[in-house]
């Protein structure tokens, strides 16, 4: 019997033009949480996809309990007891918890030779599974759509458990969870550990990793940098190992001098009671206003309301001393506002279009000759300038945006807004899902913009980012402002207590 439950030996995987995994070895002991870390593109997801049978490895062996196993599909992986909780959950919202759990392998019974689904067994099994993930108070017949995101995730974990999984892969499980929900997830993980499962835990959140994991493996550029015991590591050490260099400053220093008020919002309220109500704030020239709060604080909704994407019931928007009305994003853009949305894939990029088209879409009128013909030379110039300025790494401006990494995609969307020369940039989670190096570059861009006199509103759920970048932090809770904190006075504790204010 080997010391390790799971061993991946010398795994290689190439895609056209890139070597995604270069002789990676990765070993996991049973009953432990093993964190897998690395910048985006380091190869962690690729490695896990090889393990779960989504990709076919070019070379190398996978051993479970010392036995070589062949994994050619997700079905193979599940049969061997390897389950995955995906980063983006794909539940069937309009069906029950039980049907989601047993989708594709419904328990059957025979009545006069005809096989039909055995609902009784399915309900009982579901109840047992829900108990294991602290959801025992839920009825197996409940529709998934009535569950919160974290509860859906628990159902997904229950599904993994139902396969008698020995190895559970969790890809960014906490990316959209609140503090409490994270604690609940950690409790479930402890349960799984006690049952002897090994958990492979992929996350960008260092604090979390150091808290929950027993061992940490760091990957960089398709190779494994090494494996350490979590108790030997600190955040700084981890970052250094991930980027391969010491990052002395995680945030560039602020040098901007704040000017007069650019944007004043007074009593802004959504038409929906449960959304943002009575929000007032002032944004000055060159200022970075951070907005903190827990999931559900209605921060994104507030910004979408300001940008003309949501209906307002009352409130004033005063811009450069004049009251303005914003009815649509078009109005907002014409006034000089820009909004980088939270969900890059859903509301940001045009995946099938080129970088150039992605940059140009919000500023097309600037490139017209005779009022209606697009001048590609002008367009190309602006795009190329921005590619250089933002250091977007791409083969050419005609490359399709979906071929770029997350960080570069984000920069392309920033370029889209800079092409409009806005006065106020609203950035909703500007560094979500972006690796450490690209994060620093985006922070630098933000600093440069504020020095040029642009004002920035930044929504962020990352405490360190909020503290490191904002001149003032506005904290929201359930649609209302619960307080403002100046940078000098801001601490994690003050912000958390405002965000969770009882």
């Amino acid at each position, binding site marked *: 019997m080997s010391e390790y439950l799971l061993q991946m030996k010398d795994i290689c995987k190439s895609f056209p033009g890139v070597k995604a995994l270069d002789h990676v070895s990765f070993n996991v002991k049973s009953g432990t949480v093993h964190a897998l870390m690395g910048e985006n593109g380091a190869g962690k997801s690729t490695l896990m996809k090889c393990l779960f049978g989504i990709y076919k490895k070019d070379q190398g062996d996978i051993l479970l309990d010392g036995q070589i196993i062949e994994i050619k599909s997700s079905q193979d992986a599940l049969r061997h007891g390897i389950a995955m909780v995906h980063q983006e959950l794909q539940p069937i919202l309009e069906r029950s918890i039980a049907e989601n759990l047993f989708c594709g392998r419904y328990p059957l019974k025979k009545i006069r030779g005809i096989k039909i689904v055995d609902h009784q067994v399915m309900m009982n099994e579901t109840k047992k599974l829900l108990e294991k993930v602290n959801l025992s108070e839920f009825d197996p017949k409940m529709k998934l759509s009535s569950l919160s995101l974290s509860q859906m995730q628990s159902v997904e974990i229950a599904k993994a458990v139902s396969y008698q999984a020995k190895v559970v892969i969790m890809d960014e499980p906490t990316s959209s969870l609140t503090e409490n929900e994270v604690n609940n997830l950690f409790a479930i993980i402890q349960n799984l550990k006690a049952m002897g499962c090994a958990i492979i835990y992929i996350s960008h959140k260092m604090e979390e990793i150091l808290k929950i994991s027993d061992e940490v493996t760091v990957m960089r550029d398709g190779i494994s940098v090494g494996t350490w015991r979590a108790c030997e590591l600190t955040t700084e050490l981890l970052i250094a190992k991930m980027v391969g260099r010491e990052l002395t400053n995680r945030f560039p220093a602020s040098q901007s001098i704040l000017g007069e008020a650019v944007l004043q919002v007074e009593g802004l309220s959504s038409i929906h009671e449960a959304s943002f109500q009575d929000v007032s704030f002032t944004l000055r020239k060159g200022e970075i206003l951070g907005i903190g709060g827990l999931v559900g604080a209605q921060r994104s909704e507030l910004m979408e309301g300001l*940008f003309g*994407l949501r209906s307002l019931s009352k409130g004033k928007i005063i811009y450069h001393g004049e009251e303005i009305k914003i009815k*649509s*994003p*078009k109005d*907002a*853009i*014409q006034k000089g506002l820009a*909004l980088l*949305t939270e969900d890059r894939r*859903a*509301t*940001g*990029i*045009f*995946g*099938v*279009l080129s970088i150039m*088209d992605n940059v*140009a*879409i*919000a500023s*097309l*009128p600037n490139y*017209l000759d005779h009022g*209606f*013909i*697009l001048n590609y030379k002008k367009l190309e110039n602006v795009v190329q300038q921005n590619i250089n300025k933002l250091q977007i790494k791409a083969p050419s401006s005609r490359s399709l945006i979906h071929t770029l990494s997350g960080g570069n995609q984000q920069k392309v969307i920033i370029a*889209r807004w800079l092409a409009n020369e806005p006065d106020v940039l609203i950035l909703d989670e500007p560094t979500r899902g972006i690796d450490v190096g690209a994060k620093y570059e985006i922070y630098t861009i933000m600093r440069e913009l504020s020095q040029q006199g642009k004002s920035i509103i930044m929504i962020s759920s990352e405490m360190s980012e909020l503290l490191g970048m904002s001149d003032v932090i506005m904290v929201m809770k359930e649609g209302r402002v619960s307080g403002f904190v100046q940078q000098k006075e801001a601490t994690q504790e003050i912000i958390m207590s405002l965000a969770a204010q009882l």
Partner: protein
Amino acid sequence: MKNQTKNYIQKGFSFASNNAIILLLLVLVLYVGLTQKNFFSGRNFNNISLTTSIRFLVALGVSGTLITKGTDLSAGRIIGLGGVLACTLLQRSDYSSKFFPMLPELPIWAVLLFVLLLCALIGLANGFIIAKLHVPPFLATLGMQTIVYGANQVYSGSDPIGGLVNDYTDVVGYFDLGFYELPFLLCIAVVMGILMWFLYNKTTHGKNMYAIGGNELAAEVSGVNTKRSKMIIYALAGAMYGMAGFLLAAKSGGASVNLGQGYELEAIAACTIGGVSTTGGVGKISGILLGVLVFELLKTSLQFLGIDPSLQFVAQGIVIIVAVALDIRKYTLKR
């Protein structure tokens, strides 16, 4: 050296699989051309160029709706209405069963303009229903298809309309270039193709259209007036069908309510064969032209081979399904 050859083979293979349907049909055309006489003849070429020209106009109209992830099933019936309208307004004064007996001879251009405007309005109604009332394009245009067909029956009394003025039927005539008789229809199709290429590639409307197809929410956030763009797209499509109907009736020397029936499906099929992706945001004018051409050649080839007309439909249907399956495969492979 060996690697390079392998590379070429790989590239060749991927080209072949990406354009499989077109290559396959070209092989068919070549086979028919070599085995059947008169296939590669001036006369056959002219026939194909006339039908292709009209089909191309329809496909151009449909393409905008497809690129924005919509569709337009009302195309065929709008063609029918456009044709019937034009015919009722452009009959000879000495024709015995004249639709409007007292109507003087109208200038052709005025009638064309009227037909284009009316069909554009029907298209605009499509666009309004889709953009403002949020009815899925498939159902909105299905409803419109039925409405227009019914309205056309009421208007024409379901009688075929003939006895057209010569000026009108001359629209399908030729420029005599001495060495070659250049069909007017071909010229019209080329001009419209160039105009649409310009619209798609050189104007904000075109860019907005591709953006809406690529990601409608992102387009809205970027300040694109998605509703207005969609209404323009469907209205323009309506005008294209009107033009096609006007020309088709002139070519046939008359029109009945069934003029243009089924044209929408062929147009959608041709666009898809030509690389207008059903997943939105992708499609070029050159591709549309190729798609229409390939589909027309397929039909002509089957005729030349003397295949049972009913079986020809079966073959066309198979080509459509295979084309879409291959198109979807391009996008699923990238995952």
